[in-house]
């Protein structure tokens, strides 16, 4: 009996020593904003990362998207944000000037992350005053979806590349099949009609015009390019009646998903949802060059490192390993529809075997980001509301652009 106890005690001591001897994995906290469709794929990636090595354990906490930036801002202000966070590229400008994110150049070098394997456009849009403040995981540009079956039924043989081709193809589909010609959300419901702003910005950029002037201080669309861009949008709805009025975002997505719409404009993030719909035979192309060259609005999910009360280089190096791994495994993230940012991913068979992705991978080359001004959030809402109103009330281009210009300049004042 006594001997047994002695053995047991020795065993316990031995076990305790072994635990101390083995390296304890470092626990890294992070926040992401992915819910719904994207969320599954992101969680799966994090799980795969945790299983791929035994030094780092990533602990997640998904925050509801509508509250994400509120919560993030509060946490950043109190300096108790997690070790790494997911932030939209368009939002970086709200944070970087306030010094709440760490410049990453030094750590990127130490972690030997090869920046030359990143697509230049998304990477450069994470730089402020020459310093890198975030690393892009993806780009998710505006694209055009088309329903192959409806096109065939209506006798449309070519994916439209110009405005007139789009109009006539959509018209043929609407007339011959009874489906919606173009599913484009143009009213606010649970989600604002941001697609209108994204389209408007893209149509401007196709004519080499940015929505704000170079200094981001004034509206830059009350001109010929603006008239053309607005007219193209308004005509789809009011003149050709190819877009149903009062169509909200969810209905726009649902109608295309259910095979009840010929064309659909949206970001790439719905590819995954459309693929899971049985019986939907669709294609995706970059936003067509309706008014000039190819140019599509995009945003990007990036990783940024909040400044902590005390900076622990070991933790930051662990974060760098995580970011490196996540961006190198972009083919897993591409399942959600997003376009990976590392060119090394494009040649992987896992990526090549994904359907549709090759069709719109081009889109990443012809994209542009929202203007880098901290007022963009407010402008985005105001422009979307104003375009929604003008198109709903069928205002002429002059009245619409005058009103829009005033709203934009008032906010920028």
């Amino acid at each position: 009996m006594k001997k047994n106890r002695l053995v047991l005690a020795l065993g316990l001591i031995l076990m305790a020593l072994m635990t101390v001897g083995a390296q304890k994995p470092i626990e890294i906290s992070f926040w992401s904003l992915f819910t719904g469709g994207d969320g599954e794929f992101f969680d799966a990636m994090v799980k795969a990362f945790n299983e791929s090595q035994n030094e780092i354990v990533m602990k997640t906490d998904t925050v509801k998207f509508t509250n994400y930036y509120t919560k993030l801002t509060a946490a950043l202000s109190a300096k108790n944000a997690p070790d790494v966070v997911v932030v939209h590229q368009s939002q970086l400008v709200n944070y970087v000037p306030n010094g709440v994110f760490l410049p990453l150049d030094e750590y990127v070098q130490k972690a030997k992350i090869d920046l030359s394997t990143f697509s230049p456009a998304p990477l450069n849009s994470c730089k402020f005053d020459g310093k890198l403040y975030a690393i892009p995981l993806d780009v998710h540009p505006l694209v055009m979806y088309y329903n192959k079956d409806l096109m065939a039924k209506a006798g449309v043989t070519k994916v439209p590349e110009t405005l007139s081709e789009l109009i006539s193809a959509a018209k043929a589909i609407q007339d011959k099949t009874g489906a919606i010609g173009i599913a484009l959300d143009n009213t606010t419901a649970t989600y604002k009609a941001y697609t209108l702003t994204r389209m408007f910005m893209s149509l401007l950029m196709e004519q080499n015009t940015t929505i704000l002037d170079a200094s981001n201080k004034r509206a830059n669309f009350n001109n010929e390019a603006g008239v053309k861009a607005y007219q193209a949008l308004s005509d789809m709805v009011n003149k050709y009646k190819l877009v149903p009025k009062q169509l909200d975002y969810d209905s726009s997505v649902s109608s295309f998903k259910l095979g009840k719409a010929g064309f659909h404009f949206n970001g790439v993030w719905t590819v995954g949802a459309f693929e899971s719909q049985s019986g939907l035979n669709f294609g995706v192309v970059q936003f067509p060059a309706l008014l000039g060259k190819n140019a599509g609005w995009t945003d990007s999910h990036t990783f940024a490192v909040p400044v902590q009360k005390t900076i622990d280089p070991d933790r930051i190096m662990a974060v760098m390993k995580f970011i490196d791994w996540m961006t190198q495994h972009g083919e897993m993230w591409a399942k959600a529809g997003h376009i990976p940012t590392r060119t090394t991913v494009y040649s992987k068979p896992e990526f090549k075997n994904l359907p549709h992705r090759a069709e719109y991978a081009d889109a990443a080359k012809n994209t542009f980001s929202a203007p880098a001004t901290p007022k963009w959030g407010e402008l985005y809402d105001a422009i979307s509301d104003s375009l929604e109103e003008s198109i709903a009330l069928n205002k002429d281009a002059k009245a619409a652009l005058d009103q829009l210009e005033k709203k934009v300049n008032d906010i920028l004042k």
Partner: protein
Amino acid sequence: MQSRKPGLYSCSAGFRFFEWRYYYMHLAAHTKRDLILFSAPFLLVYMAFLVFPVVYGIYLSFFDWNILSGKVFVGFRNFVQAFSDEKFKSSFFHTLQFVALSTPILIVVGFLMALISVRPTKLGKTAESIFFLPYMFSTTVVGTLWAWLLQKNFGLVNQLLQAIGLKGVGWLTDPNIAMLSIVMATLWWTAGFNMILFSAGMKQIPDEIYESARLDGAGKFVTLTRITIPLLKDTTLLVVILQIIASFKVFGQVYVMTGGGPYGTTRVLVQYVYETGFNYFKLGYASAMSMILFFVILVISAAQLLSSKDEGQ
């Protein structure tokens, strides 16, 4: 009427404050200590989560602050800005619209519900539960539920309308209808609360009054207009004040159901305050607009309370 005890929800509470102070002064020391000790937990929470934020909000309304940078004192600029801000004006107007549309109907329906539910029958009890049930749901649940029901293309209501050969209505996307849809959802959601207040008031009216009226040959209608309604005056005043305050604070169901759309035609003031504060991070300006709303509600409530006291006593 003189012998009537002050009701559970009597509005005269504010005027009795001085009486209470008189009682308090004559209490024994240990009783006073107990009173304070027992109310301390509540008072602490109340201070931390209500009094402090209110005071801090007043302070903030004189600053420019985006949470991440330092605060900059701007005096009354935020208040001045509000009065030249089109979005503030339109949002304020939409709130007034909601108050005007929702308050009367919520009070009348709450009253009618109370009339049904105070009956000591099984039906009355059942009706009371049914009427009050929606009030227990959170804003998000109510908003999401109604947003789905009223959705233009796939919502249940329009599906039913189309099934009987009618055209679907843009319940939430037609600028002439969206606000009415929100009022409808709010009615379903909160009328039950007014019912509870009214029926509590009705239960305090002594049965003898009804009995003697019946003996005098008064019909149902006369009893209602001559006894129930006049004797519910205090309760009604309370319901009116609470309802107006609640309607001014409308936000959640609008945010979930229409997001302020179509094109901002249902954006209410609290929504704009929320967006300004938490989406555009202009905390000072958002606080200033809240203070304006607070002031408006304060003036309206005080005016109502005072005017009714004048005629009543």
